[in-house]
C-alpha cells in the first residue's frame, strides 16, 4: 500500500502503523514531525499550516514513487496536516515498511527531506508575544526546524 494525503484532521501515527503492518515485514519506520514550542529562541504558541493542496499531493505522490523505487519499498504512507496546530501536535507522519530496517529508515528520511525541499506547504508561526511570521527556510538563521 502506498498512500499520500493532505489532511485537516489530527494525524494518528498508531493507526498509520496498523494500516501498513504485515507479518511479511520485519521493520516499520515512522517519522513524525511535531509542533515545537520554540523557534529561533522565540516562544511559539501555534503553527498555521497551509498548502497548494492539489500540487502538494502531486509532489508527495512523486516523492513516494521515487522513494519506493530507490529503497524497494512497497508499503509507504505519508500524511501532512494543514490548519492551525497546537504545540506537540503531529504535522506530518511518514511510515515505511520493509523486510529489513535499513531501507525503512532510509525511506522515511528521504521522504521528509524531499518534502522540505519541494512540497508547496507553508507555515505561519504564532508566538506567545502575540506576533506571527511566515517561516522562510531560505532565510533561516541556521537552526533546523522539525
Amino acid at each position: 500500500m502506498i498512500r499520500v494525503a493532505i489532511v485537516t484532521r489530527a494525524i494518528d501515527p498508531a493507526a498509520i502503523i496498523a494500516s501498513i503492518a504485515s507479518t511479511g515485514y520485519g521493520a516499520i519506520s515512522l517519522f513524525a514531525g511535531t509542533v515545537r514550542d520554540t523557534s529561533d529562541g522565540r516562544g511559539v504558541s501555534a503553527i498555521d499550516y497551509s498548502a497548494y493542496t492539489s500540487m502538494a499531493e502531486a509532489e508527495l505522490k512523486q516523492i513516494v514513487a521515487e522513494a519506493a523505487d530507490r529503497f524497494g519499498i512497497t508499503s509507504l504512507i505519508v500524511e501532512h496536516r494543514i490548519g492551525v496546530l497546537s504545540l506537540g501536535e503531529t504535522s506530518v507522519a511518514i511510515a515505511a515498511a520493509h523486510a529489513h530496517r535499513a531501507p525503512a529508515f532510509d525511506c522515511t528520511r528521504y521522504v521528509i527531506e524531499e518534502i522540505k525541499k519541494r512540497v508547496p506547504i507553508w507555515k505561519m508561526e504564532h508566538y506567545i508575544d502575540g506576533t506571527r511570521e511566515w517561516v522562510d527556510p531560505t532565510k533561516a538563521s541556521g537552526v533546523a526546524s522539525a
Partner: protein
Amino acid sequence: MSTVTVLLFASYAESFGGATLEIPLNSGDTVGDLVDSLRSLPGASILPDSPRVAVNQKFASYDQTVHARDEIALIPPVAGG
C-alpha cells in the same frame, strides 16, 4: 493580448493582497516574462531574485512558454514538515 491567472499563497498572497492576479499575456511569453510582469505590481518587493513558479502543478523553468489556460502558481519558499 490575453491574460493568465496566477495563484498566490501564504506570504505572497498577503504581500500582493489577494489569492490570484490577472496578468497580461502575449503570445510566446515565458515563465520568466511572467515573473518580470509581476515585479512591477504593488507587493512585489517580497519576491526573491528567482521565485519558484509552478505550471499546471509542476515546478517550471523560466524558459517554459505559458499559455492562457495554464494553471500558474507563484510558490513562496516551502516550509512543510
